[in-house]
């Protein structure tokens, strides 16, 4: 008894000593609830078990904006989490904040030699500055076309639509087959502005869509390609073959799962929800492009990315680097990809999944990756879009387009107002970063 006790006490004090000497601990704030939250926790638990000297405390903080606001408040109070997930479109706030340790600096300093060419390009480009990647892509997704195979059969659609003209025809046939809506989309601006313009290499804003400078001006109201696309959507809304289901993906997904809509343009990461909800056969295909486009380019990514916040000591930063390195390795990437439906950030993980035949059984999981890597090295107009105060800008754009769908405003006027109001917001952002 006393012997046991002594051994125990000895072991404990030895453990304490080890901890005192090397232990590093940091907070990891993320917006993943439900199943994805369990997957993140599992990754963290495995890491903690493998690294007795490091403790990662993962915390589910609510939505992306709760993570952001929580981290900002904590940072101002000097208690910032080491690692946080930020919504891709809010990356500019982080990139210009001066509160971030860039991963291109963190990783080499901790002795990790990262092969950045191994990452999915549209993701990495969005989070890089002149010196290299600032943030580590984590949960990336992209909009793709999900369609109801049974509805296609019922409507007599033989080939999967590839162009917008074919989509129109298919949507009309689905309506004729008795469905309430032919087509809808989640996150309308991500789909109809961001991805549409990237795929067709359209300039939405100056400075190559904001990628080469924060001081941008929007130009999409003067781009015939985009303007015509919106006018066409309006005519579809009036005809009843396109249904507007709100600013997020929730209602769009529900409309698809409940067999109201035969096709949706939605995030590749909605796979999990569709799989668990759909009682029909479904499949996925590329986002449509305009007839006559020779080589449609890559689409834009969405989802979140990992930022390391400044203010930790070197030892902790090293531990964070170790954790990031762990997350980018193939087994973790594969697990994340298969469980959540997000695309793997590393090409090696993609190849590994392909080699083990994962995509033979889950072809829809491959569509997003192929679409993101389509067209080789991205040119100046399809490297992504980056705008300060993006949340407000997308709100403004949504408002203006909602007025168009409701018939309160003409397309040209709405787009012109949208540009004017968005430019004023960008101006405020540029002032806020002292440029």
């Amino acid at each position: 008894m006393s012997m046991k006790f002594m051994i125990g006490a000895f072991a404990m004090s030895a453990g304490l000593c080890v901890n005192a000497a090397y232990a590093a601990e940091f907070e990891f704030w993320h917006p993943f609830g439900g199943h994805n939250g369990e997957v993140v926790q599992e990754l963290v638990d495995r890491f903690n078990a493998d690294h007795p000297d490091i403790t990662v405390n993962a915390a589910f903080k609510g939505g992306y904006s709760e993570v952001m606001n929580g981290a900002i408040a904590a940072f101002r109070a000097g208690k910032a989490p080491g690692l946080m997930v930020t919504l891709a479109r809010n990356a500019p706030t982080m990139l210009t904040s001066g509160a971030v340790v860039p991963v291109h600096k963190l990783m080499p300093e901790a002795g990790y030699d990262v092969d950045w060419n191994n990452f999915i390009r549209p993701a990495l480009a969005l989070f890089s500055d002149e010196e290299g990647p600032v943030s580590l892509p984590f949960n990336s997704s992209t909009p793709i076309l999900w369609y109801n195979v049974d509805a296609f059969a019922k409507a007599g659609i033989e080939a999967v639509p590839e162009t917008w003209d074919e989509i129109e025809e298919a949507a009309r046939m689905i309506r004729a087959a008795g469905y309430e809506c032919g087509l809808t989309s989640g996150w309308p601006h991500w789909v109809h502005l961001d991805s549409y313009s990237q795929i067709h290499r359209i300039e939405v804003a100056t400075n190559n869509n904001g990628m080469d400078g924060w001081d941008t001006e929007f130009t999409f109201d003067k781009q015939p390609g985009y303007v015509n696309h919106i006018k066409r959507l309006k005519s579809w809304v009036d005809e009843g073959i396109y249904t507007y289901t709100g600013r997020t993906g929730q209602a769009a997904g529900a409309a698809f799962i409940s067999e109201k809509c035969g096709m949706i343009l939605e995030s590749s990461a909605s796979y999990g929800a569709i799989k668990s909800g759909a009682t029909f056969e479904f499949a996925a295909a590329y986002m449509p492009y305009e007839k006559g486009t020779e080589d449609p380019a890559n689409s834009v990514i969405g989802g979140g990315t990992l930022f390391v916040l400044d203010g930790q000591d070197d030892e902790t930063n090293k531990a964070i680097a170790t954790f990031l390195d762990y997350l980018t390795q193939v087994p973790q990437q594969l697990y994340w990809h298969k469980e959540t439906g997000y695309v793997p950030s590393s090409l090696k993980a993609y190849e590994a999944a392909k080699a083990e035949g994962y995509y033979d059984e889950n072809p829809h999981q491959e569509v997003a990756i192929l679409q993101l890597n389509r067209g080789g090295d991205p040119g100046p107009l399809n490297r992504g879009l980056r705008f300060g105060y993006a949340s407000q800008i997308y709100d403004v754009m949504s408002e203006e387009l909602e007025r168009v769908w409701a018939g309160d405003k003409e397309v040209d006027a709405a787009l012109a107002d949208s540009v004017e109001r968005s430019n004023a917001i960008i101006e405020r952002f540029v002032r806020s970063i002292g440029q």
Partner: protein
Amino acid sequence: MKKRALFHGSPLPYLLVLPQLIILMVFFFWPAGQALFQSMTISDPFGFRVIFVGLDNFRALLSSSEYWSSVRVTLFFTVTATCLSLVSGFFMAVFADRAIRARRTFKLLLIWPYAIAPAVAGILWLFLFHPIFGSIGLFLKAIGVPWNPSLIGNHALIVVILAAAWKQFSYNFVFFLAGLQAIPKSLIEAAAIDGAGPATRVMKIVLPLLSPTTFFLMVMNFVFMFFETFGIIHAVTQGGPGNATNILVYKVYRDGFIGQDLGSSSAQSVLLMIMVMALTVIQFRYVERKVVYA
């Protein structure tokens, strides 16, 4: 003649109000001061750069059509929802007061909505009026109304007004009922003997005697509609569609906490504070004159 109570040189009264003063300082004056300062700056969210811009934030707001549309929506929303919940609260109280059987049960049932969080109230009404699976929404579509609150601004506004009015209705009901029960029966009976019908009795006797209650409730309802309806808006419409339900307090949240534009958001809260203060002053100066404190 005024009554005066004088405490000569004793620190006791100051000590007694100190806790209240501290609470006011910490939770009101300090944040309000911060907001006032921030409203005159443009800053990055992490607080590295704070640029003093004077009244630029206010100028930008007052010259933006979007802000004014938000002001209009807020006033319309507040006035409509307040009237709706006051009137319905009053009539329900009159009926509950006259009910002979199951009076307690009626009262209890009518007080229930007050125990529900605004966000939950919003969700309930959203479900009822949802165009795809809501029972009222489906009914409206069946009788030929092109009902779609997710796209048509006025429809969304109707849903949030109903939700807010319903949520606040119970509060008004309780106060009106208490007020009614405090009216001496003899007054009502005397009027009845003089030949006044039920409607006349309500209009000529009950309403004037309830005017202090009504006034109090009006002020409380205004404040509720201005600030506490945040949960309803957040749960039901998030300010959309278009800008149709973007009431001021929600816009403060959206620009500040989602958009990270702290300067503009603070300027908006300062304006909101001024507006509510002005409204309360107006209510006390002009409406209160019509109040009879029996």
